[in-house]
């Protein structure tokens, strides 16, 4: 639970968190107790990759995203880690 998030870690949705498509507002969102996080297209794919079933490491998720977006792995790794760490700090994801 302590230390910075690394590529060898795995993350999952925290208890009581759900990924939901809001058809009235036309976006995807993470819902938790008293909280809503609106996801843009990139954040949605990051959440999907990192919480894939069966579970994958953050490193594997970064690899999958690099392929999906046809982007250099090194360029996106730090951004993905930052997005995930932020979602952990806000209680939407857990390690």
């Amino acid at each position: 639970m302590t230390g910075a998030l690394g590529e060898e870690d795995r993350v999952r949705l925290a208890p009581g968190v759900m990924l939901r498509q809001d058809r009235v507002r036309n976006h995807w969102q993470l819902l938790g107790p008293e909280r809503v996080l609106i996801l843009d297209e990139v954040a949605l794919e990051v959440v999907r990759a990192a919480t894939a079933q069966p579970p994958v490491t953050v490193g594997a998720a970064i690899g999958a995203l690099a392929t999906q977006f046809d982007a250099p792995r090194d360029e996106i790794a730090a951004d993905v880690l930052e997005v995930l760490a932020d979602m952990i700090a806000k209680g939407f994801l857990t390690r």
Partner: protein
Amino acid sequence: MTFCGATTGIEPPLALLAELTHRCPLRCAYCSNPLALDPASRELDTAVWRRVLDEAADLGIIQVHFSGGEPTARKDLEALVAHATGAGLYANLITSAVLLDRARLERLRDAGLQHVQIGFQDTVPAKAEIISGFPGGQPKKLEVARAVTDAGMALTVNAIVQRHNIDRVDDFIDMALELKAGRIEIANVQYYGWALKNRAALMPTHEQLIRMDERVRARLPELTGRLVVDYVVPDYYAKRPKACMGGWGRKFLNVTPSGSVLPCHAAETIPGMTFDRVTERPLADIWANSAAFQRYRGTDWMPQPCRSCDQREIDWGGCRCQALALTGSADNTDPVCELSEHHGLLAGITATDGGTAEVPLTYRSFSL
């Protein structure tokens, strides 16, 4: 059917507070339920609640909070949770926990319940009993809290803070960690309903609040990523008001046990209001057009100093019910604002009612 969005310019609401019943085995002296409680005979039935949940989902509501009273006093809670989840709503349960057990929690989880918020009156059992008027509550609450996380649902510890427990805010945080709660709400008592009757017995001193504030802030860094802390400085000692309910008629609607639709749960205290009922008008129509929602929506209703203030679309002039309770008119600026001509009243109230003394409590009257 659409009354929201482009046609009226009114944003759809985010959350529905579904007060299923006013029945409750506890008799909390800080209860914000109205002094005139709805009897069981006037409660909406299951079919009407199902329709309300469907209408809420169609309207764009995201989260439903099953509340009360004690919502688990309703035998159809599982059915309503399942219906809400089926309609795409995120289901929260706001409970005192004393009527719950592991088996029912598992049924509620299987119906789709995501989050359980349990109210705690204190960390010391005997002291909790004095506030709730309910013997044996604490061990039961702790047992149910553990069962919530065991069942894989999110748990919030709702620490209801007043003068008798405010010095144990650290213990509340430790209790939340020990229970593996994902979130703690440090809720200073708001003085509505029964709580207003008991203000002189509950309100803490300024010194107590400053100590609590220091303790909470000192703990925050270590809690990041472990425990979400929702914490609001109590109104009576603040300089600017909160955007009550995120602004009147902007984010929330509240359905009472007998079906009235309120912009906030204390709105019935305001004289001259008429509330529409879910049995008489569709929810979307009520949200967009009902007199109660229009009365204080936006900025047109505002008096000075709000009307020309640059904060008017941030705090929306504060709380209408508080303006009423303290200044005698809900049309006034919330006197918590230091720009209000009535702001001086707060100092008077905190001086007379704020304290640490033991003042006799008036318990919420109850019927189950």
